[in-house]
């Protein structure tokens, strides 16, 4: 499990006790009860309920918040009391029954929502499933809405998420593997992939990296992402995070791996390329021309969001002669009364915008709208009238912001906006020369970046002409006969002449 010859870390007292060594249970209920109570340090939500079956004292022990009252009554207490027998295995109708003589196992079962049934005079502990699996209702993810297509979104319950996936891929080859990570939280992580399609090396690599995680807690998929990604210092997200089951399904059927985490509706997809962040499931719901145009618009939005302010800064502060006279007169006249150099102007506007965005994101909707109006209209107009920022700069920054919001993935949009700042600095210092070098740096980085053995900027670098048809543009589905080559799926073909009916039509 662990690489190298490093000694395993010993668990600290506050971490989850390793159940490697077992602790033999006692013969009397009272002793067992005492042990369990001590194991939980007399926590108040650990409940004990005594039942007497055939004059034998029994105790049902459970963690109140984790267990479902309904299940506890219907599947355990009611049958037992009605039949009044000690033949527990036969009577209890729980989904899962484990019998153990190890008190450690009972403790870890209790933390997972099991009830432990103790019977006086025997060492056997019955560990019975009574888990309360409530989760919120399935809703459409707020940050990945579509006009047409599925409006289903993942929820915080991993089992329900897996159910949504299984419903979409009704295939015995769909394999789910569970991992436990987090020494203090013991969080459930699951990976899902299609056996016989996915590259086995990829699965092994993902498993190896997840198993290497040694941390107290795993709160969000972001933790997992940072622990297992290839280049932690890259500004680009290297795993696609989505809350949409249809998006995950599409990627899994292309031979990729999805990672679920208990307690989070976002799932991670790997390996992905840069262009996966610019695709939306919606592309396949509209006519393919429209899908293509939408994708091209998004690629343009990438360039705008990245470089538009820098190009403007470089032009007005270094190379205003590049523009024709009429245009430059317009720009210069709007700049005339502004006391700041273009870089400062741009920074003021960009920072104001980021502030507005950050402020609005956490506010309830009606207030957020107010902020939008105050920020967009009031500040926008006032800042120009106060001659702090020029009209042109407002246009540029607004265009940049709109472009960055056109990216279907939130992380990518943030990364690009952040990358814009060093570019602005470079073009304010060196003009076009600086801008070209800055963009080259980003491009070199993109060319060199690899995630899970897949070149990140494929199919542009390395250049694969045939794969442009599902990355830059979108051709009709029946022309996408093959899966992307970089995933290294075991089977390349994914479509077999679905329009062959057309050939027979003339007869």
């Amino acid at each position, binding site marked *: 499990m662990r690489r190298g010859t490093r000694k395993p870390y010993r668990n600290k007292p506050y971490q989850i006790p390793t159940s490697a060594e077992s602790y033999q249970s006692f013969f009397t209920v009272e002793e067992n009860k005492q042990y369990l109570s001590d194991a939980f340090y007399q926590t108040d939500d650990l409940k004990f309920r005594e039942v007497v079956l055939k004059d034998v004292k029994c105790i049902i022990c459970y963690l109140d918040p984790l267990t479902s009252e309904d299940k506890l009554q219907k599947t355990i207490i009611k049958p037992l009391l009605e039949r009044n027998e000690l033949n527990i295995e036969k009577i209890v109708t729980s989904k899962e029954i484990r019998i153990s003589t190890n008190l450690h196992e009972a403790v870890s079962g209790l933390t997972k929502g099991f009830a432990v049934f103790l019977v006086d005079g025997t060492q056997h502990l019955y560990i019975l499933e009574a888990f309360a699996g409530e989760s919120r209702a399935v809703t459409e993810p707020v940050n990945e809405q579509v006009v047409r297509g599925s409006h289903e979104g993942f929820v915080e319950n991993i089992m329900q998420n897996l159910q949504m996936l299984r419903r979409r891929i009704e295939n015995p080859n769909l394999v789910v593997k569970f991992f436990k990570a987090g020494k203090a939280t013991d969080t459930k992580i699951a990976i899902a992939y299609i056996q016989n399609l996915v590259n086995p090396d990829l699965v092994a690599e993902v498993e190896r990296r997840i198993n290497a995680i040694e941390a107290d807690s795993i709160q969000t998929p972001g933790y997992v992402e940072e622990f297992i990604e290839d280049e932690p210092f890259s500004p680009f997200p290297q795993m696609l995070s989505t809350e949409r089951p249809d998006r995950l399904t599409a990627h899994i059927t292309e031979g990729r791996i999805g990672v679920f985490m208990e307690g989070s509706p976002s799932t991670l997809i790997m390996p992905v390329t840069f262009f996966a962040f610019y695709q939306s499931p919606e592309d396949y719901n509209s006519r393919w021309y429209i899908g293509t145009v939408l994708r091209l618009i998004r690629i343009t939005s990438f360039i705008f969001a990245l470089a538009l302010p820098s190009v403007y800064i470089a032009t007005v502060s270094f190379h205003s002669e590049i523009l024709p006279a009429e245009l430059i007169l317009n720009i210069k006249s709007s700049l005339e009364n502004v006391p700041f150099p273009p870089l400062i102007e741009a920074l003021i506007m960009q920072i104001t915008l980021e502030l507005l965005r950050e402020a609005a994101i956490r506010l309830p909707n009606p207030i957020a709208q107010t902020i939008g109006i105050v920020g967009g209209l009031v500040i926008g107009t006032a800042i120009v009238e106060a001659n702090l920022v020029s009209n042109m700069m407002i246009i540029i920054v607004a265009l940049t912001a709109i472009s960055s919001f056109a990216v279907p993935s939130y992380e990518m949009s943030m990364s690009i906006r952040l990358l814009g700042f060093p570019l602005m600095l470079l073009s304010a210092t*060196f*003009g076009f020369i600086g801008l070209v070098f800055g963009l080259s740096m980003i491009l070199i980085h993109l060319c*060199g970046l690899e995630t899970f053995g897949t070149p990140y*900027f494929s199919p*542009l670098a*390395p250049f694969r002409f045939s794969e442009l048809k599902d990355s830059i543009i979108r051709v009709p589905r029946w022309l996408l006969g093959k899966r992307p080559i970089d995933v290294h799926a075991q089977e390349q073909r994914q479509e077999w002449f679905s329009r062959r009916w057309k050939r027979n039509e003339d007869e």
Partner: protein
Amino acid sequence: MKTNNTIHSTQLFFIIFQTQVGVGVLSLPTSLYSGAGADGWITLILTGAIIQGVIYILYLLSNRFPSSTLYEFAPKIVGKYIAFVLSLLYIAFAISTAVIVLELFETTVKTWVLFRTPMLAILLLLTLTGTYLAVGKLKVMGRFYQIVSILIVPLVIMAAYTLKDADLRYILPIGENGFGTILKATQKGIVSMLGFEVILFVYPYVQDKGKAALKSASLANLAVTSLYAFLTFTTYVFFSPKQLEMIPEPIVYMLKGVSFIIVDRVDLLFLSIWIISVMTSYASYLYIGGIGIQYLTKRKKTTGPIIIVAIVSLILSTFTHDRYTIETLSSYHANASYFFALGIPILLWIISVITKKKEGAA
């Protein structure tokens, strides 16, 4: 879990192409003009033909040792000690080429775009970016060179746009200076076409060796020759012979005069694209120097050696930078490059053929 550090033969094409296209392109028309007059563009085509022959020999040499670079196979051909000296010379050559690229870049940028920016800042920009590119190893260079090569298209379109003001009479009569002069001027052409020798250092990393690699190298040479001949031709039909004698960088001058719809100074766009070509050539030479040092010092990684080469060339390039010194340096470098790109490889090939030295059959 990384992909292999190999390149496809298509990427070999772009590596050779981008290494060849570099700083020289701006001053090429003038230097050819001083040699062969208005027939300079014919000279270029001849140069391309000569280089094609050299490329074939380089290919034959590399193909005798398909899994080693020049640094690795030289000892097998001429013995340990001579090979050591040769490797040192090649490293020195790579560093001096990098220095020349840096200096020419700096003077051009200073002349055309950034008049008052400190020299070191401009040099640092190129050094940092070039080093970052070169340490990414060959696969990253291959991918990057391939993707930026698309920028050559707008470059050609810009130059082609000036043809509307062309006057064909400037280059007539064709061949007025006689074949001898044209042939003699090829030595001026070869200097700016240098870079094809990179094949000696990247060949072991090519996936499909043999005919496909030769085809890539030849096509790269053809592409460079056509591009240069075209650019030279456009300047020759744009400027009168009198003007050409006076203008040091005619392509930029030419583009300064034209304007597209909303772009009044096309030369700035041209120079911005040209920078990338300079960067790629520079990175290639850093790489050549770097793997040499890596081989001689028996290191595992190329990162350290490449950074050393970059720092050394940066320091050297800060010493001299008036136009005269650069020109003298360039001419020394040009003479030296005949040995490194033509003489030594051909000699090595002849020796290896005579002594029947090949990989495996040592």
